[in-house]
């Protein structure tokens, strides 16, 4: 049986119904476990004090914010090439999740920046490119919203996702170039090897796993909703015709 079988909505519904509880339970376990371990069970950093505890939210959220976009890009390509409805709907379902993670990364970063750099916000390349990423998410979601016909919306957002990915990469590069040598020195680039000791590293790993699982849970859940909503709209349209 080919993997593509699961791109059939019915197969997907059956599979996801069985898988969802386990993924959800695992994500709750990892998240609560990892965060509790990090919050209660790790010492303060000698330089950053207790703020180092923010890392357990900040880094996983930042990673997943980017990965969510990558997943949407992959799903869009699958839709545009193989026309599997589930992948289009999964991309749609993932966007708000990605946006939320981006906002978490931004918020925790800002709250961290206040004690560390003495400012909520600085136009550091990394921060700036995250802000731009948030804008891409917003535009993508707005386009889904604005188009009535679901297949048309899937096609258009797919094209936007591909073109947007290219420009997001370009922006990342441009932002790096723009702020080169003008602002923010070493205090910004906290190197993992240098700063993150094992005590911090293990709970962080658990938290990352938790965020990955949370992402999976939410995407599965929301994709199921989107599939139902597609069928609902089709039924309503038929009612109107008949």
């Amino acid at each position, binding site marked *: 049986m080919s993997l593509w079988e699961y791109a059939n*909505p019915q197969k997907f519904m059956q599979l996801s119904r069985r898988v969802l509880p386990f993924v959800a339970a695992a994500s709750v376990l990892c998240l609560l476990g990892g965060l509790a371990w990090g919050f209660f069970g790790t010492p303060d950093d000698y330089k950053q004090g207790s703020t180092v505890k923010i890392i357990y939210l900040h880094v996983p959220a930042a990673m997943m914010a980017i990965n969510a976009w990558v997943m949407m890009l992959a799903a869009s390509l699958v839709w545009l090439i193989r026309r599997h409805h589930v992948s289009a709907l999964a991309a749609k379902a993932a966007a708000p999740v990605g946006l939320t993670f981006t906002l978490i990364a931004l918020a925790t970063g800002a709250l961290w920046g206040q004690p560390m750099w003495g400012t909520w916000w600085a136009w550091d390349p990394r921060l700036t490119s995250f802000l731009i990423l948030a804008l891409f998410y917003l535009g993508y979601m707005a386009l889904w919203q604005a188009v009535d016909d679901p297949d048309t919306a899937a096609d258009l957002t797919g094209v936007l996702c591909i073109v947007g990915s290219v420009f997001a990469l370009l922006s990342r590069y441009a932002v790096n170039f723009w702020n080169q040598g003008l602002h923010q020195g070493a205090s910004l680039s906290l190197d993992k090897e240098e700063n993150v000791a094992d005590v911090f590293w293990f709970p962080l790993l658990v938290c990352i796993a938790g965020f990955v699982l949370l992402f999976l849970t939410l995407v599965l859940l929301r994709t199921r909703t989107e*599939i139902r909503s597609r069928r609902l709209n089709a039924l309503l349209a038929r009612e109107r015709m008949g």
Partner: protein
Amino acid sequence: MDLHVTDLAVARGGLTVLEGVGFSLLPGRALVLRGPNGIGKTTLLRTIAGLQPAVAGSISAGAEAIAYAAHADGLKATLTVTENLAFWAAIYGTDQVGPALEQMNLVELRDRQAANLSAGQKRRLGLARLLVTGRPVWVLDEPTVSLDLASVALFGDVMRGHLARGGSALIATHIDLGLEADVLELGPYRAQIGAGNGGAFDAAFGEDFA
């Protein structure tokens, strides 16, 4: 240029509206499509003109043989009659603006801006566009809307000339054009609501999975 349509199904807004449509249109012939409002005439013509994909079935003539005229005329209000027509002539690489103006009785209006034309005159200009395309298969969606009787007769003459030159025409209309033409009633091809209606969509979303 023959146009053969076989077992065609067309969809609008995700729902198949017509299915199993089949006919042949030979040079020198005109075919009139009939059916009540909303049955899918416009959808069918757009599919044949290549503007949207068919759900099923095949269309033999390439889109390059077809000149399509829609409900809207595609006129630019601030351009004059000649400028509007010359633009389309240039796009289609022909050079027949003068004869087209004459045949649709637009010579007197040639330097008038399209904004200052009456609805019927606008329509005449829209139909004159067909003459400058130089294409053999005309696909027309209610071509005589808002034309008065004299203009309908004028259009009939133009159409007969086109057919005599070996062209052909597929026309959706509610009124009698006074042409010798075959008629295709679309009623029998109305798609069944329910099973299989959504094409690929139904194959995926059709069953209960609540």
